[in-house]
């Protein structure tokens, strides 16, 4: 097979689009926390880019997509990515794109998944504890689960070492299970392990910057075209289907969420519009290449409304999932995953299956439920154990002190403040980079 320039260009561009989602997520989350926590919220996503990218080269890609393992992991044949140079991508058949383009595209998924979790433990997690969690969680949860769902084996479809969920026939085009249910389950576990923020339900914890939330949602929406349409791994008809469904489902979900707000709270809010968009993007992710566009619209409406109602659950059950990772990613992921059991059709994608309404019976729905539940249970239990362990390690810990939490995590963990509107906080400068060096004043700089 010859390398195809168009396909390669689209997958490389898609990888960059998906990378942009993680800073977008950081803004989306960052605007929702209080002023004293905005930098820490942004940093939780940024450190994830650093950690996961390095681990991906070392062994992550191999564990997820290597071909010497079994149904549960990919083995260690591709560690270091050196073997991937000058080869074509293989995933249940050969694709006319470089293996490295595929590896980088998949890396961006591995990056954003742990970043999604950070919203559940906003404003109170020790930065080092978080970094350790990210490194261990992607290693023992994300990389294997990506193998379960996304690895279709070697050149022969489903021949060499495909993931067990892929082999079972679970449909998940771009990561409803591996990304969203996975992150949502871990978020729920960590919210329980870390406990509620001081003053939760007593003090107002309003978003400090809603325009930043909207910018974040916009970047997520834009980047998500790479996430979903890029998952076709080529500039193909299927990519256009995924693109279309991503657009229309997301739009419908904005309407669904706002409709619930209008009825329940009296007013449609900007936070609701941004949240509805993300809920729609989450729900369409597994389904985007298996649905007719009208069915994607219906899915968006359902996901927007269901997620808008699900945000109340944390108050009922008393866990402080601060930025609603559970209600948006876990619930939205489950909605999209199970929806395929009803509306998936081989008329859109021959590689898929027919759901209940297309004469496929209940078989697909059963597989979808198996996929959703397996990923949920595995991720939840490991995150619960891992979080508890990190919390217990002396000198590490997972939660900042009471004083640091009240004063603000930005100062305590990063020695920075997000905003200085007045520029008159009475600061003086010392350089630790060049001890004793004189810092030039303004006149010298402008001269």
């Amino acid at each position, binding site marked *: 097979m010859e390398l195809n320039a168009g396909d390669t260009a689209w997958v490389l561009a898609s990888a960059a689009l998906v990378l942009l989602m993680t800073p977008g997520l950081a803004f989306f989350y960052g605007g929702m926390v209080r002023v004293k926590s905005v930098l820490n919220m942004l940093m939780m996503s940024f450190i994830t880019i650093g950690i996961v990218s390095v681990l991906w080269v070392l062994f992550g890609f191999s564990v997820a997509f290597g071909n010497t393992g079994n149904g549960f992991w990919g083995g260690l044949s591709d560690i270091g990515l050196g073997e991937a140079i000058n080869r074509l991508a293989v995933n249940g058949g050969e694709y006319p794109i470089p293996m490295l383009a595929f590896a980088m595209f998949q890396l961006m998924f591995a990056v954003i998944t742990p970043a999604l979790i950070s919203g559940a433990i906003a404003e109170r997690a020790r930065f080092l504890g978080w970094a350790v969690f990210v490194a261990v969680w992607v290693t023992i949860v994300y990389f294997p689960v990506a193998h379960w769902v996304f690895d279709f084996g070697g050149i022969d479809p489903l021949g060499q070492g495909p993931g067990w969920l892929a082999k079972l026939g679970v449909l998940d085009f771009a990561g409803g299970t591996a990304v969203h249910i996975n992150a949502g389950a871990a978020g729920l576990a960590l919210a329980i392990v870390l406990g509620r923020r001081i003053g939760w339900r007593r003090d*107002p*914890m*309003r*978003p400090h910057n809603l325009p930043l939330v909207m910018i974040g949602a916009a970047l997520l929406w834009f980047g998500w075209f790479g996430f979903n349409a890029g998952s076709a791994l080529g500039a193909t008809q299927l990519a256009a289907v995924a693109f279309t469904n991503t657009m229309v489902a997301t739009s419908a979900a904005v309407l669904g969420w706002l409709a619930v*707000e209008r009825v*329940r*709270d*009296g*007013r449609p*809010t900007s*936070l*609701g519009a941004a*949240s509805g968009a993300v809920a729609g993007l989450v729900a369409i992710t597994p389904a985007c290449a298996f649905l007719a566009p009208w069915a994607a619209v219906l899915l968006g409406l359902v996901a927007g409304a269901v997620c*808008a109602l699900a*945000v*109340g659950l944390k*108050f009922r059950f008393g866990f402080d999932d601060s930025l*609603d990772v559970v209600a948006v990613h876990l619930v939205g992921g489950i909605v999209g995953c199970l929806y395929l059991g009803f509306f998936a059709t081989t008329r859109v994608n021959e590689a898929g299956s027919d759901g209940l309404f297309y004469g496929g019976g209940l078989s697909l729905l059963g597989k979808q439920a198996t996929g959703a539940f397996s990923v949920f249970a595995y991720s939840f239990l490991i995150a619960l154990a891992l979080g508890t362990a990190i919390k217990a390690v002396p000198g590490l810990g997972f939660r900042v002190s009471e004083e640091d939490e009240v004063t603000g995590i930005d100062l305590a963990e990063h020695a920075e403040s997000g905003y200085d509107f007045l520029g008159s906080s009475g600061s003086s400068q010392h350089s630790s980079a060049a001890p004793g060096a004189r810092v030039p004043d303004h006149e010298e700089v402008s001269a």
Partner: protein
Amino acid sequence: MKLVTAVVKPFRIEEVRAALETFGVHGMTVTEASGYGRQKGHTEVYRGAEYTVDLVPKARIEVLVDDIDADDVVEVVVKSAQTGRIGDGKVWVTPVETVVRVRTGERGTDAL
């Protein structure tokens, strides 16, 4: 000399400023403030969670005036800030011992 301090609704600030200007007051200090009186706060809803926000945004105006002008300035502020609805704010007068203009060192009423 007196210090006239007024806490009023932020959207009235331009009317108050213009009225004081017309009256002959040439300087003032305006700051953003927050607080509440009988009006109390308001509610905001984020993702379905209702927050009672106790402190309402207000504008705080401070004007230094000669003793004989104090009552008139209070009158001007009240008239220009009034909407007749709850939450219009308060105005109060406090005695000031001395005032110095930083640029020239003038003291007392010369510095106003």
